[in-house]
């Protein structure tokens, strides 16, 4: 009987020690730049991500190449890469730690973002769950990115600089593996 209990306990521990892996299956990241004369958007679908949930919680990492953002204009995209030091620091990385996979319709997450050689945290960023198909999870939200946080010089036109706030619209679908 004692052995049976020990066996059950070990079985439970082994299950608890197992980790669930999550993979980013689809994503759209769109930055929005605002200037007094016009607004610009650049989109990337090239991000990749992975998540691991275990007894310690869920850790997610998402990264996108800086040069994968397309604003529809070659010159602007190259200027964006130059301004954000995208050749020296070619990836924008977002790390998230959650206690569990979100179960409700909304959730908040603390994000650590590495971009342009700098690292900044954004606390309690709200997201809305959009789907839970096939055991996966889809959600969207807006990361309140500010270029001043990363010491990125603001491009200007006719003596007027862009706004420091460059929000990133996020739409992601994750699948469990």
């Amino acid at each position: 009987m004692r052995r049976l209990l020990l066996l059950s306990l070990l079985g439970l521990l082994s299950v608890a020690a197992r980790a669930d892996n999550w993979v980013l299956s689809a994503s759209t990241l769109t930055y929005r730049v605002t200037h007094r004369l016009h607004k610009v958007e650049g989109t990337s679908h090239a991000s990749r991500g992975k998540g691991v949930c275990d007894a310690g919680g869920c850790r997610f990492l998402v990264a996108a190449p800086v040069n994968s953002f397309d604003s529809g204009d070659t010159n602007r995209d190259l200027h964006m890469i130059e301004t954000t030091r995208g050749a020296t620091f070619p990836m924008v990385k977002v790390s998230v730690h959650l206690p569990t996979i979100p179960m409700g319709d909304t959730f908040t997450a603390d994000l650590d973002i590495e971009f342009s050689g700098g690292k900044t945290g954004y606390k309690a960023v709200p997201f809305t769950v959009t789907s839970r198909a096939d055991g996966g999870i889809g959600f969207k939200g807006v990361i309140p990115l500010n270029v001043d946080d990363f010491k990125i010089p603001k491009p200007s036109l006719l003596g007027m600089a862009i706004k420091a706030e460059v929000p990133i619209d996020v739409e992601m679908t994750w699948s469990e593996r």
Partner: protein
Amino acid sequence: MKKFFNSGLALLLALSVAVPGARAADSKDLSLDDLGFQADQLKSDPAMQAKLHKRSRMLKTHQILGLVTAVPILATVMTAPEFESANTKDIDSEVDTHKMLGIASGAMYLTTASFALAAPEGETAGRNKGLTKLHKALAWIHFPAMVAAPILGYQAYKQAENGESIHGSAKYHREVAGVAAGSYLAAMLVMVFNF
């Protein structure tokens, strides 16, 4: 019985370790290496960064000079003499002003163009899109027109100086210069609102 339990225990532990993708609770943090990017996508390229920086500086100079050059170009167009209606003395004065402004415009135009032509291409070389493509396409109009306009203007001046009526290709000097100025201003405006 003891053997059975020991075997079962060993099997269970082996399964818990062997499950694909399974990790222990104290596993390391995820890194970029876990995401499957190609090595060259992750590689820092300071040489490319320096190239992009040089490109930006040169195009910024191109942009500023382009805006400044618009002034003598417009002034040249506005000071174009009317050979048919004015007397000779007035024409000489107007022609001198027009000629000097034209020379200044041409020199500044070529200087402006040189910064764009000499700026290093980025990694999207030859794959222009958006308004940058339109800006570059307009150069195929204003560049030949900017070259032809002073040549035709010189011919027109010589014909007028000889007392001849303006004829031949010289009579299109005004139109060619208008096309040059118009396409130049269009190319400039495209980029002013497309930074």
